[in-house]
């Protein structure tokens, strides 16, 4: 009898963990969509709704107190934006919303060029948010707002600059509004992702919907590393702080911290180790450790990052963030995703 019991336990212990089922994938998708994505767009909408009144107050009374209040409202939008700006599918990808919300990085300097031209020769038509929304992406989003009110010429904020900033704030609120509806409407992206199956015109299986989320989170790591940190870090002795996002407003640190928090939350809700067909406890704990290392890296670099990145400790801190996030990115891409039965595709990601 004891032998039988022992055998039974042995069988249970040794039997392979089962592979993820369509139900498992569907649950993971629901966790991320309802736990992270939909609330994040809601929070973005709430933050953008406060930007326009803060801009109007500052423009009426441009004193240091109102300027700080405006800065706080702007940075709140940046933080909320960091929670969605890697979800490059569905409502954010449609109607060029991602570029219109934040034309960044702007490597050819299109935004600065157009803004200079516009300030030299103000166009009153663009003060209408609807018209602004149909104009160049480079002058209707976060970087344009920042350049107008926190840029080099911020000391001389003119009447037109203020009015244009108000129009941009209204446009950002409008875009957020559209994205919230794009996700939550009856024919929106949330019901689409949660009803994956043979009758769904877009996601034929829950696995395809889960692959979409996998692609998004990996995009988040790539954007953080390649666009936001590596370009600014440059070669030894060649840091380019002006390549960091949102340094004009002093929002860089908050935006990067929020990016780390967003990726951490997304990865935790997705719970790839839980979908795995093998024991992934060590990968799970490694992810926790690496996110902690990344947070510590930002702290080590010192604040504000645009001023510290060229110094040795600033550089070391950023390198720590980069190394930690690379480990998580590779763990997910090479180990956890295949074990969870997911794949981003080799050619499907491609623009060739």
């Amino acid at each position, binding site marked *: 009898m004891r032998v039988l019991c022992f055998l039974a336990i042995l069988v249970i212990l040794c039997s392979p963990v089962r592979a993820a089922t369509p139900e498992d994938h569907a649950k993971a998708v629901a966790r991320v969509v309802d736990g992270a994505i939909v609330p994040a767009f809601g929070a973005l909408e709430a933050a953008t709704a406060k930007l326009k009144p803060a801009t109007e107050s500052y423009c009426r009374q441009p004193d240091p107190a109102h300027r700080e209040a405006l800065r706080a409202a702007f940075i709140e939008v940046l933080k909320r934006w960091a929670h969605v700006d890697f979800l490059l599918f569905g409502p954010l990808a*449609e109607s060029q919303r991602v570029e219109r919300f934040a034309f960044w990085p702007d490597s050819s300097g299109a935004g600065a060029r157009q803004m200079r031209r516009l300030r030299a020769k103000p166009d009153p038509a663009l003060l209408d948010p609807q018209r602004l929304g149909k104009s160049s992406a480079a002058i209707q989003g976060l970087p344009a707002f920042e350049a107008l009110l926190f840029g080099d010429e911020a000391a001389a904020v003119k009447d037109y600059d203020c009015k244009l900033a108000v129009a941009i704030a209204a446009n950002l609120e409008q875009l957020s509004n559209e994205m919230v509806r794009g996700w939550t409407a009856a024919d929106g992206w949330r019901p689409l992702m949660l009803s994956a199956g043979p009758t769904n*015109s877009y996601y034929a299986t829950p696995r395809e919907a889960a692959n979409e989320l996998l692609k998004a989170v990996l995009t988040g790591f790539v954007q953080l590393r390649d666009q936001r940190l590596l370009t600014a870090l440059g070669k030894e002795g060649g840091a380019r702080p002006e390549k960091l996002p949102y340094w004009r407003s002093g929002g860089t640190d908050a935006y990067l911290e929020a990016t780390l928090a967003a990726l951490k939350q997304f990865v935790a809700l997705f719970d790839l180790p839980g979908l795995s067909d093998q024991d992934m406890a060590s990968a799970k704990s490694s992810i926790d450790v690496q996110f902690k290392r990344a947070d510590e890296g930002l702290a080590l670099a010192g604040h504000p990052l645009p001023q510290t990145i060229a110094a040795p400790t600033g550089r070391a801190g950023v390198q720590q963030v980069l190394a930690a996030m690379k480990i998580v990115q590779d763990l997910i891409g090479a180990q956890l995703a295949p074990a969870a039965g997911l794949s981003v595709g*080799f050619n*499907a990601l491609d623009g*060739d």
Partner: protein
Amino acid sequence: MQAVAAFGGTGLVSPALAAIGDNGLYVSGCRQADGSFAAVLFDERGRDLAVLPVETRLHDTAHSGMLNRAVIFARRPGTLAFVIDLVSRRLERTIMSLAGRHFYGHGVFSKDGRILYATENDFASGAGLIGLYDSSDGYRRIGEFPSGGVGPHELLLHPDGRSLIVANGGIRTNPETGREKLDLDTMISSLTRIDLAHGTITESVALPKAMKLLSLRHLAIDATGAVWFGAQWEGDPGETPPIVGRYRPGSSLSTLMLPEPLARVSQGYVGSVASDAQGDLVATSCPKGGRIIVWEAKTGKIAGVAALEDGCGVAPAPARKRGFAMSSGGGLLIDWSLEGASPIASEGSRRSWDNHLRKIIS
């Protein structure tokens, strides 16, 4: 008639190669299970004949039966191309792009094998070029032609042997990365025909204005002489414009609509185009949608659809059957015909096959 002749027999294949078997030799780039990259030669049953490790991700292959050589290009913005000796099955030489230039991943040999033509980008100006390399002189770069547009991608030797057809994608990319797109507002994609004797552009056809955000990238010629193109949509992902079309040299472009839900599922993206052994079927792969669409060349109607996740590589089927060999980023190789599909046994199922599959011998 000339076009039909392009689908002729194996007269140019040497006895040494023919000994491999009558059913075909395939070449494709891949990422191996350990993350490294290689060019792989395999036979019609998916058996490896050679695995040639290289330092970069690969894209497409040019082949010369006269030389018994294949040249596999690095993926854009690559600076390397690798010459494979098909008899010894070894890497023979590495071709490097000029300083300030990069390859787009595609090339083609002249009929006699003497000249290799490669699509290239001049980083600084963004001008599209066709580089000329002399195979009889160590692949020395002996000249260049303008491609007639920005971002030339795939190119074909016209069956007349005297002209090239080039797909100019129209997208200027960031010189720092070579991949990030610039200036979509000004993009103009076109197909051009270049006279080889003089390097002059004899035809250039662009898309109608409403489709100016369509980037023409991949090409194949069918038995009727029509050039098929596969495109990618750079506009709003919520829209579903046509991404496949035909061009008959001397006339204008025409596009083919995809029915729903295929149009939406394809996500505005074609990764590869090929015609089959007889040239009466054309395959266009849509890896983002996990579908490969097969068209009847004569009518422009859809003959069949293969569901293959991350499926991108398409080439004529083994033997001289109607249909296609298809490869996927998930490591699958499929033998597809109108009657059905069967897996081709592969030693490398943990491989990720790259965008393009080439059949060297038919």
